[in-house]
Structure formats: structure tokens, C-alpha cells
């Protein structure tokens, strides 16, 4: 009898240890097989939100469903349109009741490799970011608690949450996890530029390669913020936010990263966005002030505003700043850089069936 008791205690202990390791016992068949694209780093998926087929599928439905908004008129896809590489072609998004903000919607591309979210970095995880627009009165004008209650009552969604997260009693945390799982699998890696790693300069036309050389040398300096050889062409790990001279000292007070950190040295520093699919993601910058790539090039060439936090990659060229107000690119050089930027367009991405609206038949 004593032996059985000891064995029982041992088995119970083993079960408790196993239980502690796994929050929701995932079905091995439900594991989402995320394939890291060639030449990309491995993603770091949070241990408390591993990718599952059911989670990704649910997240995709939520992403396209206006149920997330107060009056069921706005979905994530309203402002993150796949035709625009999950950005928006308007300067400012229109929220519930016609409300508009003063920030341009960021593209959703390769977020699995990114660290902080929103232009000012106020979300430190993709799960947190996913809930932001729901609670923003200028966007979905809802509360994540209300949405959780709506989804718990939904005959469509309650069983899907049960399948993905083990409970039909939906919580805001589960909503964030589902949406972020879908966002995490949105990957662009089939542009012309992606052939560069295999065949180097042969991937490009002469004009594109000339632009590539401006981008990746000290003539253009672009690589210092947007990654060197950079398969991701987004920010570097430890320099996510940069001041690129969009604002004057007076204009930048409290804007950008300083909104979060409250440090004046972070005034006017915004998240460096990915350049992938940039041809499709205009208008550009945090406030969508530039409608075209040509305007963007003109800005970097001659429109930089000097301020106290201007990035070193600009202040290290005082002569260029003084003479040109920027990089001083010729019109031919600007065209070459634009030609290179267009090699980042990935139509396989925008046509990927796995990213499309699941409610459209």
C-alpha cells in the first residue's frame, strides 16, 4: 500500500511538472510549420504564444472581421490593405464615426522579426500591438473587454477560441495572441531583391544596381538605418528609432519615441520601417506627408530639417547639409534609388492566398 502511495505521488509530481511547462496543451497536429525563408534569421516566437494552425486561422478571421470595432464597421484590414502590402493608401486612416488621427498606418510585413511596434514603439510585443487599435477611440473605438464578450457569445468564434486556446471564454489576451499569430506569418521574401543573395548584381538591371550601390554605400547611407545587406530591410536591433530630420526642434517636442520614454533626447525619433514593398505602401513617413517615392527622394536629398536629435548619419555630413540640405543626390541618382526600391516589390506576397480575406469567396 505504501509503495502505491509513493508511486502515486511520483506520478502526480511528474504530471504537475509537465502541466507547468505547457499552458494550453497544444495538439501536435495543430503546430504551425513556420518556414524561415532562406537567408532570414530564425524568428523568436514568444513561448506563451506558439504558432498553431488554429491560432493563425482564427487570427486571420479576426483581422478581417469588423466585429472588433464598436459599430462593426472597421476591421484591421480596413487600414491594412493587402493590396497596399498591408499599409494604407490614405495619409490618415478613418476610424469609427469618421474619426481621423494624425498617423499613417504602418505596413504589416515581416513583423515576426521586429521588436517594438507603432511609430513611437509604445507596444513592446506583437500581442500588445494587436489590441492597440481596438481600444483607440480614433480607430475601432471599442474596448478589448467588450470585444472579448462579443466573441464569447459568438457561435462562430467561441468554438474556434476553444480549439486554439482551450477556452471558449474569450479574453483580450487570447484576441491579441490570435491576431499576432496571423501577423507573425505574414512574410515577404520573393521580391527581385531577394535574388541578390543567390546571384548578386545579376539580380538587377544596370539602373537598379546603380541604385543598390547608392543605397548600400556611404553615398546614400540608407543601409545604416535600414540594415546592411539586410534581408529584412527594416531597423537594426539596437537602433530601432531614428530622427531623420522631418521635424524642427519645436515641431518634434513629445513626438515619436519620447512619447513613451519622456526623454527629450528621443524627441522626433520614429521607428525605422521596413522598405519591403515600399512601392505599394505610400504615402510615406509617420504622418504620411510624402505621397510618392519621388517626394521621398527629394526629402532625403534636400529637405532635411536640422534639429538637436538629428541622426548622426546626417550630422556627420555638415557640408552636404549646408550645401544641399541633405544627401544632395542628382536627379539621375534619385531615379536609380527609386528603381532599386521598386525591386523590393513582392507580388507573390500581395497575392498569397494564406493572407487573403477568408470571408471573401
Amino acid at each position, binding site marked *: 500500500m505504501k*509503495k502505491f502511495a*509513493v*508511486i502515486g505521488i*511520483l506520478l502526480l509530481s511528474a504530471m504537475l511538472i509537465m502541466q507547468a511547462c505547457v499552458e494550453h496543451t497544444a495538439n501536435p497536429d495543430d503546430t504551425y510549420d513556420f518556414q524561415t525563408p532562406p*537567408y*532570414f*534569421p*530564425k524568428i523568436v516566437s514568444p513561448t506563451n504564444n506558439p504558432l498553431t494552425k488554429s491560432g493563425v486561422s482564427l487570427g486571420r478571421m479576426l483581422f478581417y472581421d469588423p466585429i472588433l470595432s464598436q459599430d462593426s464597421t472597421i476591421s484591421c484590414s480596413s487600414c491594412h490593405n493587402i493590396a497596399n502590402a498591408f499599409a494604407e493608401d490614405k495619409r490618415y486612416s478613418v476610424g469609427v464615426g469618421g474619426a481621423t488621427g494624425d498617423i499613417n498606418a504602418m505596413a504589416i510585413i515581416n513583423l515576426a*522579426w521586429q*521588436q517594438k511596434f507603432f511609430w513611437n514603439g509604445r507596444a513592446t510585443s506583437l500581442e500588445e500591438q494587436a489590441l492597440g487599435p481596438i481600444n483607440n477611440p480614433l480607430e475601432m473605438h471599442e474596448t478589448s473587454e467588450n470585444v472579448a464578450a462579443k466573441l464569447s457569445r459568438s457561435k462562430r468564434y467561441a468554438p474556434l477560441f476553444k480549439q486554439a486556446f482551450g477556452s471558449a471564454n474569450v479574453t483580450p489576451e487570447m484576441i491579441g495572441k490570435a491576431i499576432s499569430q496571423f501577423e507573425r506569418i505574414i512574410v515577404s521574401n520573393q521580391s527581385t531583391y531577394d535574388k*541578390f*543573395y543567390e546571384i*548578386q548584381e545579376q539580380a538587377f538591371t544596370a539602373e537598379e544596381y546603380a541604385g*543598390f*550601390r547608392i543605397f*548600400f*554605400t*556611404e553615398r546614400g547611407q540608407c*543601409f545604416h538605418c535600414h*540594415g*546592411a*545587406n*539586410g*534581408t*529584412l530591410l527594416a531597423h*537594426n*536591433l*539596437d*537602433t530601432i528609432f531614428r530622427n531623420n530630420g522631418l521635424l524642427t526642434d519645436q515641431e518634434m517636442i513629445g513626438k515619436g519615441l519620447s512619447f513613451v520614454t519622456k*526623454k527629450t*533626447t*528621443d524627441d522626433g525619433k520614429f521607428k525605422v520601417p521596413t522598405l519591403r514593398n515600399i512601392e505599394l505602401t505610400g504615402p510615406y513617413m509617420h504622418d504620411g506627408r510624402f505621397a510618392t517615392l519621388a517626394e521621398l527622394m527629394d526629402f532625403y536629398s534636400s529637405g532635411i530639417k536640422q534639429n*538637436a536629435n538629428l*541622426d*548622426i*548619419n*546626417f*550630422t*556627420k*555630413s*555638415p557640408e552636404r547639409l549646408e550645401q544641399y540640405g541633405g544627401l544632395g543626390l542628382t536627379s539621375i541618382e534619385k531615379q536609380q534609388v527609386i528603381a532599386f526600391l521598386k525591386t523590393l516589390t513582392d507580388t507573390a506576397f500581395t497575392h498569397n492566398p494564406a493572407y487573403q480575406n477568408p470571408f471573401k469567396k
Partner: protein
Amino acid sequence: MKLQLLFVLMFLSLIGCTWKNQDSNGSLKVNFVHTFQDTTLQILESNQLIYTTTTGNKFNIKNLKYYISKLTLYQNNGAKYDVNMVKLINPMEQNTNYQNYTLANIPNGKYTKISFMFGVDSARNTFPFGLPNNSENNSMEWPFALGGGYHFMMMEGVFQNSKNDTVGYAIHLGVTPNQFYNEFPLYLTVNDNDQSITMQVNMEQWFNGINKINLNDGYNYMMEDQKKQLLFKQNGVGVFTLK
């Protein structure tokens, strides 16, 4: 009997994780402590100019990262312990002015010399991805268009130029053969113990070695300027001191 066997198996499985490799018995933690001359280095976010070079440049350091590789311990009998490592030293990480690297499983013995390479050794300073493909290394990539590989060092900040304007500088070193070796005499006996040494990294020496660096001489676009990189390579030999 079966129960006793079960307990023995459980005990063995628990201690199995903590058993040491009997063939390797010591460790050495190398602390890289950054200074400007003999004072603790401050890496600033602001444009305050807190340092002065021997050539009179008032400047600061806002960003500093560099690689060391091939850390090796030598014994008098010619034996050496080479871990074939690469480590990115990033004093900005966690707001500390030091970083460390631990050599584990060092065979017992008396070691009389330590050496390491500044930069990424040529075998790994390649395109694409001579180093593990991760965010840390990717942010140090040296563009293919400029030869590929990795930045050996990024040191950036602002200084007061000859017009009294506060402007940026960017000392970026890379490209084989701009690596260089550092070696120091060592008095280290490894005998089943864990030890540590301190490597002082005096940033002033980058500007005040055999070459006196004046930031007004154009240290803003040096990735394509091998002559300027060579000046820093020559100065770099005096940057590290074993304390």
C-alpha cells in the same frame, strides 16, 4: 526492489544535468571594462561633449560596438586553448560600461599568455552570414557593395568641428585585413577553479596612438577609405590592456 531502482534512476537523471566534464576543469571570465583614459567610459544619448582628444577635439561617444574573436590561452610548453569564438562587445547593452566573455572547460595547467583578435577573423568575415544569422550580427553587417562581412567596430558620436558646430562622426572599421591581434603575458593557473581577469579598453587610445586623430580630417565617410581605417588599426594595438 523496483521502487529502489526507480529512486536511483530519478536521482541519476537529476544529477546527470549538473555533472562536469571530467576532462575540462576550469573557466576564465574576461571582463572588458571601458574607460576614457582611466575614468569609466560614459556613452551618452545627448550631444554633451565630455571628452577631448589630444588634438583638441571636444567630442562624445553615443554608440559603441565591436567584435573580438579567437580568444586563446597559451602554456609555456606550446600547448594552447583556442575556443574559436566570436563575441560582439556592446557596452550599451543593459547600460553597462563593461561586457564579459567566459571561456569554459579550460584544461588544468599554467597559462602564460592570452591573445585575441580585434574584429571578426577572416574565415568568418564573409558574405553572406559568416557569423550566425541573427539580429545582433545582422545589425553589424558590412555591405556587400563595400566588400561584405561585418563591421569590426562602430564608434559614433558628435564633436565640435573647426567651425564650432556640433556635428557627427562615425568611425566604422571593417574589411579583411583590418583585424589585428592583441596579446598579453598572463599568470594563470587553472586547477578546477573559476577565475576572472580584467581587460581595460581605453577608448582614448583610438585617437591618441602612434597616429594622432583629428576628427576634422573627415572621419565621417571612412568605410571606403582604407587609409583612414589603417590609422585606427595601428592605434588599436594600444587600446587594450590586461589589468
